[in-house]
């Protein structure tokens, strides 16, 4: 399946905020492990809400669930701030101390999974 090229941004969402202190919970897994896409981008990918998509940047790759959000312009995708978004972020701070959490060139493609839990994702950094 051909993917789409997109600009990735990450940021706070209300439900993600409510689970700030319970990030190892199932709830957090549900709310932060999504990628919000415009309906047109979902159609291009042939994915339905809740189906897994693989988001890849020059710095990493994660599988998250597609979520429709009309607020995003076509070609812009949003992942709530958290471990899944940050797996795609560079450690280069361009001399300012601040990583580029927003405006990252990404590709999004349909996949068959699997979506990693927080713990599984953290383990990929070990060893």
């Amino acid at each position, binding site marked *: 399946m051909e993917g789409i090229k997109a600009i990735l*941004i990450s940021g706070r969402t*209300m439900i993600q905020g409510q689970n700030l202190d319970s990030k*190892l919970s199932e709830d957090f897994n549900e709310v932060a492990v999504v990628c919000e896409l415009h309906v047109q981008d979902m159609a291009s990918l042939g994915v339905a809400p809740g189906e897994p998509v693989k988001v890849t940047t020059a*710095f990493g790759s994660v599988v998250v669930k597609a979520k429709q959000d009309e607020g995003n312009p076509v070609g812009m995708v949003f992942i709530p*701030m958290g471990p899944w978004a940050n797996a795609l972020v560079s450690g280069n*701070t361009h001399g300012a101390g601040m*990583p*580029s959490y*927003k405006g990252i060139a990404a590709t999004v493609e349909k996949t068959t999974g699997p979506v990693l839990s927080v713990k599984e994702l953290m383990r990929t950094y070990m060893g």
Partner: protein
Amino acid sequence: MAEVTDVVCSLCGCVCDDIVVEVENNAVTKVKRGACSVGKAKLLGHHRIKAPMMRVNGELKEISYDDAIKKAAEILAHARRPLLYGWSSTVCEADRVGVELAEYLGGVVDNTATVCHGPSVLAIQDVGLPSCTLGQIKNRADIIIYWGSNPTAAHANHMKRYSYISKGFWTAEGKKDKKMVVVDVRETKTSKMADVFVQVKPGGDYPVFSALRAILRGQAEIIPDEVGGVPKAKLLEVAEMMKKAKFGIIFFGMGVTHSRGRQNNIVNAIQLTRAAHLYGKWSIMPMRGHYNVTGFNQVCTWQTGFPYSVDFSRGYAWYNPGETSSTDLLARGEADAALIIASDPGAHFPGEALRHLAKIPTVMIDPFPNPTMEFADVVIPVAISGIECEGGVYRMDNVPLRLRKVIDTDYYIPDEKIVERIFDEVRAIKAKEGGV
């Protein structure tokens, strides 16, 4: 059942201080008024870390507070370049001890500003900050701009308490007396509430600030038909609104600090505020995230002269974000131990930095389990500031407030005491083994 009033929220930079809760059997059973859904979730309680733990053969095993503190002190005392990171979801009293410990160790102390408003701090050091308190905004502001900020998701009470929806002394009719402009790359619940929504292209903030500055300074004719994805007509409309304000405020968030341009975006935003002074009173304020991220920057500045990312390895305070900031220190593979307190880099640092954090001995101090715990070698639970213990914090407008203790704990120890006890152990190790 007892009612506790004037509870101060220890969640976000709004630090709402008018919360009313019910307490029964030493637990918060109901939040009656004042808190948003995020603050309420914290007050009503989450899973806690039940006891101190140490990693043995890859698994965390429960140990005593004394043993955990000793082990934490050993890790720090034997490190050559320890990173002491976090300090934003705790009180100033704990931060004070943390900065002193970092100096004693010759380590690096840094707070979460490094991944949120660090660029804002750099810009403020460069060009200053014409600002005010949230109280002034509530009572006076007639034009409110949220730029790269989504308060309905991140600071849910902000509009109600301090800005668009609040009723103030000179804005008694609430939002009827006010206009709200939202600048963002995408539509949000906040943008849908705005009188004017300005949709910029990702990374387009800098030229849009510049264009508005030029228009306010009488140079509208030099502006092309479109700037940063925004049509000229929209820029002229916003500039006209800004000219008419009696008291305007620009609140800005991660949309500008996380995007291309970083601190330069904020410098330009501050210069836009200055240009608006040709017409009326204008202020600008960062939407600070953690309830005491601002407080750490205050404390660290009192103690070292610098607000965050302070490196003591030279024997004096050295400040150079980009070199001494946590992400850089980790991504370069330099830190050889970490103390993580009142924050969660596991969830918020780039993967590249986490790969190194996962390799080095790490002490975690927090009331709650979080992704950082997966890397931690020693885990020390603490009392929840603002619920189980009190202390000083700084709201996003740099107004100091005191968190209240709402319920008792006979087990959990406050952050300040834990850091003090680790410090005592570190001194004892150094006295025995030599060193500092």
